[in-house]
């Protein structure tokens, strides 16, 4: 029972009508025009040290279209107040905007209801929330299964959980091609009756590999395990449908999908969320607080202690709307085209080796590679990215928060170029040219 002063949200939003609305949009696709899209992103007109910016680091953080920035600005300038507690017009507007954003995000990933959408500060917090709440029922000897291709944020929370509970952490290996090694997992009985949690990435942030989530869901569910999916690299590039995916919990972040920083999302099956204990304690997540103890709000608010990222939610809703208007299928097709073009170009470079799938099949728009000089001396990714930066080309060099995966491939680090809806073939050409120059420079040829 909710008492006075408790949440006053429009508690349930049935998303079936809204979903039908987005279907109507999809029936009339606007032709994908990368130049028109680029015009929505003012930062892409920037010059870097005399060269036009070539931003190939979207898997790290995407750029923002004007509509997202304007939505945040409009919220702060015209509607700002705290949510769910202020009894005035602005409070009502802010609450409506925040809960409206929840509905918008739910629709974007085809959730059954907006109550399945929990706002967090980022994907890492969403994954920590999963580890903390699912972990409440773990016992020593229970097993948690992840994979060697995970981002650190889908490794460390599970290591901490294993340390706390005495559970055992195990993982899927990858094949030399950078796919999850399901045969090896089957042979060694990786997923078994002791497995309580399986947590894997939908799309690898290093290799670009798209993992077979429904197959993994079947493996996990056959033994009664809960499947957590880190969809941080998937939601920006693919039409993710949580109703069909097979996952029980799905985490992703706002800033990689043209939204603001400071907000992430955890989607969960409602019946699962309903039985999970709270994560962080504080205002908003409670029902009744007495000095002797408290009762907690139902999901999603149970998991949202304190003032939430309100303006960020408004911005993220605008981002989801922006991507939907272009069409996620069109964005996927564009990324596929650009990635295929890039892989072809990179294959032509001597001394360049792509980590992971080098064909544009079941992979997203992130390509990591190592590079040597013409005489075979390795060039460190810091040096590669610095040389490219001097030509206005932004890539990432390092282990991309996936050190175990680099170890698996026997390299210390790599350079990663990652693409998005605004990436052009001309930018890929500039990357290839920049890499040729880099190789020659460190080879002592320039």
């Amino acid at each position, binding site marked *: 029972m909710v008492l006075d002063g408790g949440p006053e949200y429009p508690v349930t939003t049935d998303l079936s009508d809204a979903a039908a609305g987005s279907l109507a949009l999809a029936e009339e696709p606007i032709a994908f025009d990368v130049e028109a899209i680029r015009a929505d992103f003012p930062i892409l007109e920037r010059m870097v040290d005399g060269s036009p910016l070539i931003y190939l680091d979207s898997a790290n953080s995407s750029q923002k279209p004007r509509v997202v920035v304007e939505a945040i600005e409009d919220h702060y300038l015209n509607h700002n107040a705290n949510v769910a507690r202020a009894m005035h017009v602005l409070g009502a507007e802010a609450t409506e905007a925040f809960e409206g954003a929840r509905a918008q995000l739910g629709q974007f990933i085809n959730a059954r209801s907006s109550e399945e959408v929990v706002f967090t500060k980022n994907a890492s917090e969403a994954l920590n929330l999963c580890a903390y709440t699912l972990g409440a029922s773990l016992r020593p000897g229970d097993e948690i299964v992840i994979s060697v291709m995970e981002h650190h944020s889908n490794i460390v929370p599970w290591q901490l959980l294993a340390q706390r509970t005495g559970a055992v952490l195990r993982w899927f290996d990858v094949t030399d091609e950078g796919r999850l090694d399901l045969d090896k997992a089957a042979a060694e009985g990786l997923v078994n009756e002791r497995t309580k949690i399986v947590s894997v990435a939908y799309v690898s942030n290093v290799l670009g590999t798209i993992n077979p989530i429904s197959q993994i869901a079947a493996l996990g569910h056959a033994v009664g395990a809960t499947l957590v999916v880190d969809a941080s690299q998937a939601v920006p590039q693919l039409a993710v449908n949580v109703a069909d995916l097979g996952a029980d919990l799905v985490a992703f972040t706002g800033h990689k999908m043209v939204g603001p920083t400071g907000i992430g999302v955890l989607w969960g099956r409602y019946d699962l969320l309903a039985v999970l204990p709270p994560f962080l304690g504080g205002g908003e997540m409670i029902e009744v607080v007495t000095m002797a103890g408290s009762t907690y709000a139902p999901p999603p608010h149970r998991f949202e202690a304190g003032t939430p990222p309100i303006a960020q939610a408004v911005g993220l809703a605008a981002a989801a709307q922006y991507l939907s208007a272009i069409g996620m299928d069109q964005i996927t097709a564009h990324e596929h085209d650009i990635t295929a073009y890039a892989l072809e170009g990179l294959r032509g470079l001597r001394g360049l080796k792509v980590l992971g799938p080098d064909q544009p099949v079941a992979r997203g728009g992130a390509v990591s590679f190592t590079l040597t000089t013409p005489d075979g001396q390795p060039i460190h990714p810091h040096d590669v990215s610095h040389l490219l930066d001097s030509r206005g080309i932004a890539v990432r060099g*390092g282990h991309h928060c996936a050190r175990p995966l680099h170890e698996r491939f026997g390299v210390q680090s790599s350079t990663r170029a990652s693409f998005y809806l605004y990436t052009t073939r001309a930018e890929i050409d500039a990357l290839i040219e920049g890499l040729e120059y880099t190789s020659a420079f460190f080879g002592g040829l320039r």
Partner: protein
Amino acid sequence: MKVEDLYQEIILDHYRSKHHSGLREPYEAEVHHVNPTCGDEVWLRVHMVGDTVSDVSYESMGCSISQASTSVMTDLVIGHDVAHGLGLYEEFLTMMQGKGQIEPDEDRLEDGVAFAGVAKFPARVKCALLGWSAFKDAVARTQSASS
């Protein structure tokens, strides 16, 4: 400043053939330093004879700046009084934190002055300091072990 000016020939030379590379015996302290953002690593040993830095030996993985800087550091500190080495560390650190505004003393820092340009690239300062920080740490450990 163009990036090519950052990669001075001295730096590339040290990177291509590192001086004093490899871990050697004897030693009084060994440290392992990591740059967590890029994964660059150095394992470094210091051997003291009295107050003299008799040897600095190391295994390292990393970018040209971190490798060359470590190589130059060993040239500068081996065979000298430990106070001299720690003084050079302070001078090198000041140069790195000077955003390119500090005129280094070439008589003291020798090949180390080639890194003056690195100070203009904040993301690379940590690379240049990796080996130096490891040296300072290792020296501190030899001193706390002997006291």
